[in-house]
């Protein structure tokens, strides 16, 4: 925004004198925010520190210093959580306004350090069971508690990811790229149940008014896990593909509805992409006879979709 524009708004009496004075400060850079820069730096600091600590522990497991390092890390973790509890407001079902701009990052640092300590103890002393399963479950529980106590969306994403990996589901594109999602037999069934179950739990929490602003993050994971599961089922089980096709489309419809409900077009995007892949795969037998039919299908389906969105653009306004 240029100053002339602001003066024009002021001259035409769209804004009051006080508003003009306030906005003039911002536009003429007499007030200059480094909010995003400092937050990004803080986030990078947490990322570098925890990565460094993780590698350090991994390289020095079993060394003489391991008792010292675990004590230092535990003290750091406790310090982070002590600071968070001391400075955070009491728990509410609604949103919690952070007391300081860096409180969120202290909570995050505490969580990640705790996981390092837990992993260290597991490797060194086998505190928990032989399997890694219980460690991820404990991590998930801690993350969930942190997320709800400090109203922390980052911790919530970590919690859902850890909880999914407890069931053997890897929720990261890198893992999918290495075919881990597809490799294990019947993992897609787990994914379907996990996605549906988590979505149900989210609905119950929402109904009770507990942290309603968490619903977006929950549904984001639910819909992706469920839809990928249904799509993998469709690709791998030729015999029961009718069933998976129906599951995929139920999932797409519910995802699109969640988008309408949460006022987010992101879910509409998921529904479209997965639905389109599903339909194209289902029709592939008919489409593969002749190249020109395939091209016509692309033109008609996607061209029609573009036309549909433009025709009904009032439903897709910038602010849903």
């Amino acid at each position, binding site marked *: 925004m240029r100053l002339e524009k602001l003066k024009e708004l002021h001259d035409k009496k769209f804004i009051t004198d006080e508003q003009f004075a306030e906005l003039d400060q911002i536009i003429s850079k007499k007030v200059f925010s480094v909010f995003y820069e400092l937050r990004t730096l803080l986030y990078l600091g947490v990322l570098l520190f925890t990565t*460094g600590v993780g590698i350090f522990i991994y*390289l020095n497991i079993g060394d003489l210093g391991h008792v010292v390092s675990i004590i230092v890390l535990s003290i750091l973790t406790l310090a982070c959580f002590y600071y968070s509890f001391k400075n955070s407001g009491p728990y509410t079902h609604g949103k919690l306004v952070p007391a300081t701009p860096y409180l969120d990052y202290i909570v995050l640092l505490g969580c990640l350090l705790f996981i390092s300590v837990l992993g260290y103890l597991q490797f060194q002393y086998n505190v928990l069971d032989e399997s890694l399963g219980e460690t991820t479950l404990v991590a998930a529980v801690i993350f969930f508690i942190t997320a709800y106590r400090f109203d922390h969306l980052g911790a919530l994403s970590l919690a859902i990811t850890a909880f999914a990996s407890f069931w053997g589901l890897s929720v990261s594109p890198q893992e999918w790229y290495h075919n881990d999602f597809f490799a294990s037999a019947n993992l897609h069934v787990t994914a379907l149940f996990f996605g549906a179950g988590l979505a149900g739990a989210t609905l119950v929490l929402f109904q009770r008014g507990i942290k309603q602003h968490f619903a977006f993050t929950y549904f984001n994971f639910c819909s992706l896990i469920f839809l990928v599961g249904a799509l993998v089922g469709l690709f791998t089980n030729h015999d029961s593909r009718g069933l998976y096709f129906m599951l995929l489309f139920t999932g797409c419809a519910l995802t699109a509805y969640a988008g309408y409900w949460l006022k987010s*077009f992101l879910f509409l995007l998921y529904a479209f992409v997965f639905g389109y892949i599903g339909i194209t795969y289902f029709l592939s037998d008919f489409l593969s006879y002749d190249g020109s039919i395939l091209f016509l299908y692309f*033109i008609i389906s996607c061209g029609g979709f573009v036309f549909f969105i433009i025709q009904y653009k009032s439903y897709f306004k910038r602010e849903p």
Partner: protein
Amino acid sequence: MKCAYNETWLSNLQLLKETKEWQKNKIISPEQQASITAAYPVAFFHPNLIIRILLFLASLIALSGVTGLLSLFVLSIANGTEQIISALCILYGIAAFFFLEAIFIRTARHYKSGVTEALVYHAVGFTLAGIAGITSGNTHVIVISCLALFSFTAFRYLDLVSTSAAILSLAFLIFYELFEQGGILRQIIPMVFIALFTPLYFFLKLQKEKRENERWHHCIMLAEALTLLIIYAAGNYLVVRELSVNLMDMQIIEGQNIPYAFLFYFLTVTIPVAYIYFGIKNKDIVLIRVSLVAIGFSVFTFKYYYSLGHPEITLTLAGAILILVTIQLLRYLKTPKRGYTRENILSSKWGSANLEALVVSQTMGGNHSAGASEHGGGGSSAGGGSSESF
């Protein structure tokens, strides 16, 4: 040549986007926003980001269908030479430009709707492929056409991807021409880059200030940032050394170094420092952000050649320093200093009670503080806020 969109609507749209931010932050009331919206009409079809992505993907698939059908048709009648097919590609690309302008921009009033981006890239892609085919892959011609076409689309359709592509084509063109000449010209590539891109940066900065260039504001900002990064990379010791070794087959024997090594070490240190100094002094957000990336990469450069062999300790220490310095800065800026604030002035996440105090302190001129503190560590700044407002 002008930009393709209706200029009044563009300027109104830019205005409304900002007043909407003010309304979200409760600087102005919804009624005020409504009356401003009524007074500054915009008739564009300009959907939100997700719908744009959706339309972009769907348009690309539909366009691939069109291309596929046409190619089947062309291949069946003209079992002909590569030249004819290339010429048809160019014709098809140009036709796509006209289709975009006549149907989507002029009639359906699209502005960055996803469909427009898909058509622009589609048109550029086919035109370039056709040129490459006709000249049988002449790099000089292809790079020059890249530069020309991307500059055209960046200018006419205010497209950010085209802007980056145009700047990178320019950089590659300079590099390639000097590299092909060989001899002494290869040695002075870094100096030529700095000598050419520094004036370009100041030229862009001048253009950004002009009122009539307001609609290209985002394009120019992006071009500025890329220009600064290119100047930094041209003076960076690691970039120069590795490019010398890998592309120019320079042999560096143990104990020897690249020519003018001291100069590049000097630039590796001074360029980021200069960026952050002038960024903080002039409150230039582009300079500040680029300087953070540059500082991070300079630290990496020195660690790369003078490593103690313990990357994990380096990481941990760097992280700890970064956290401590940033928290100190945040505490320092708890009350605004010299016009700097830690609050996000156009978002209400931490309430805007402090903003009022800030405005008061600024208008009363009552701030006594030491100079802006120095930053440490480095890193990119892609805007770390987590917003799920789409």
